[in-house]
């Protein structure tokens, strides 16, 4: 008895000591965690901040050494330069919007059917189909550019038109769209669709009337990601267009430092205009983007 009590007491003391160490560890863990949060958020956002203050500095302050971290006065003339005086920036911005929207719609139409088949039906060669589609995402796109240039300037004469970008941009966005849609479609309980089909709805009607409405947020997230992927293209835009009639804004922006004197202020203003819509979209949709990316990564 006494021995047992003795061991019980030592065990309790040990447990208390362990808890004290655990608490101390937890406290340091918390401090470390918050330091990490501050460092990560700072590094992630600092270039955006620098770009913003560069865009609102006047022509003198921009060249001051040491560089000022808080602009002494706000000067928006860079924005008027970019939006009003530049001959190519607004047309390029319009081109990017048109190309991104059209490509996204096409990718969704193709992608919804394909992802539905992969997520909700069983067929021979399914993993080969999915594998082919996803591996295209890892192709070196530079190797597509030469043949497409030859094709678009020769046989199919669409060089420097929207079509010349929408077609290859589908390759950028289809794998991503299908990856996302498949993971969202798969998460839907099968009973819902089966109930609709017992009621006599065909597969396509079940897809249209049950699955898409129920996964609408996921479809929307896939659309946004597709839009971002196309919006961010630079290589195809650079090589398959030549002027404002189809050139995307990612190419337009490089024209601010292609001249003899680099217009840093205008470059910064243009970068802010191009990225702010993306920042807003991402902040609104962050939860869904993360769940789509992580879910897709595990199951896809």
């Amino acid at each position, binding site marked *: 008895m006494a021995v047992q009590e003795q061991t019980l007491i030592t065990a309790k003391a040990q447990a208390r000591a362990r808890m004290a160490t655990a608490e101390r560890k937890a406290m340091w863990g918390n401090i470390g965690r918050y330091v990490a949060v501050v460092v990560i958020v700072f590094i992630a956002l600092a270039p955006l901040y620098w770009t913003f203050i560069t865009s609102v500095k006047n022509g003198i302050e921009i060249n001051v050494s040491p560089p000022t971290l808080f602009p002494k006065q706000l000067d928006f003339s860079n924005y008027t330069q970019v939006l009003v005086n530049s001959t190519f920036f607004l047309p390029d911005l319009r081109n990017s919007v048109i190309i991104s929207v059209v490509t996204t719609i096409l990718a969704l139409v193709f992608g919804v059917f394909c992802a539905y088949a992969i997520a909700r039906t069983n067929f021979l060669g*399914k993993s080969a189909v999915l594998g082919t*589609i996803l591996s295209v995402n890892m*192709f070196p796109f530079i190797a597509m550019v030469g043949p497409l240039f030859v094709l678009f300037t020769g046989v199919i004469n669409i060089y420097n038109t929207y079509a010349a970008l929408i077609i290859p941009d589908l*390759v950028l966005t289809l794998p991503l769209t299908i990856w996302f849609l498949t993971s969202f479609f798969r998460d839907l309980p099968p009973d819902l669709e089966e109930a609709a089909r017992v009621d006599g709805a065909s597969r396509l009607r079940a897809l249209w009337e049950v699955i898409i409405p129920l996964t609408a947020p996921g479809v929307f997230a896939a659309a946004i990601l597709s839009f971002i992927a196309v919006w961010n293209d630079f*290589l195809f835009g650079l090589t398959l267009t030549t002027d404002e009639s189809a050139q995307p804004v990612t190419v337009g922006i490089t024209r601010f430092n292609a001249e003899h004197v680099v217009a840093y202020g205008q470059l910064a203003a243009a*970068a802010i205009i191009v990225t702010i819509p993306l920042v807003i979209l991402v902040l609104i949709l*962050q939860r869904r983007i993360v769940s789509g990316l992580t879910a897709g990564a595990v199951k896809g």
Partner: protein
Amino acid sequence: MATKAADTRASEGPSLLERIKLSGGFTPYFLVFPTLLVILVIAVYPMLDSVRISLLDNPLINSPAFVGLHNYGSVLGDAEFQGAVRNTLVYSVISVAFETLFGLGIALLINKTFPGRGLVRAAILVPWAFPTVVSAQMWLLMYNDQTGIVTYILQGVHILAPGTSLVGTASGVVVAAIITDVWKTTPFMALLILAGLQVIPGELYEAAGVDGSTRWQQFRSITLPMLKNPLLIALLFRSLDAIRVFDLFYIFGAREVPSMASYSNFKMFAGTAQDFAPGVAAAVVVFLVGIVISLIFVTLMREPARQS
């Protein structure tokens, strides 16, 4: 992996044959056909056509001559291309290493719930969503020798001599590209690794906790082995993405300090008509390097997990 999940479900329910009948026979094929056609015609076909074009003397004229591997000879013998290969490989190895390390750290951090987690998640998605070429321009605002804060700081701590900048030298351009890419792509790596972390069953850690093993021991004996395949997949994605790097070198290095892809681009579009086919050959080399990397990773993934 997709089929595996479907197969398990199939074996629980009716037999496979019944299931295929239930799933509507040919309907799935009709559904995937348009996408597959698009992928084959506008991605796979040009990719293979680049091999054909790389064997011609001048594909931009009506009747080009077949020159065999001549273009490959001239590209591989070009000192500028050898430099591009070196730049690309150094950039790829170092940036992917840092992205994996930082990505793992961030993934471990946001795998636990704590106030501020949402903030980290939102903040890291911001660089990820930016167009790479615009990110490059934003960093150029900090790297340049006239207005750049990075230049100012590096000169202040005497890493850079007065009057010089990071993007002024060849090795500096590679460093600049690595920094910008680590900033931009670590979030993607973190999310891929996070996905791998989230499928590790919590009971494993509980059991280890009962055994009295430390956090570090748990990380070594549970987290890392369980993460092996997700990590290898993430590394494969990133490596294939890194060797095709274009935008960063196009902006920071221009013609003077190219990557393999930007060398190919300058050759195709900024040279003479005779340079077009060698440019395509350079792009095919990027493709071949990618295939070699994929094969290496697939072998590593097939290898049974070693006992630790």
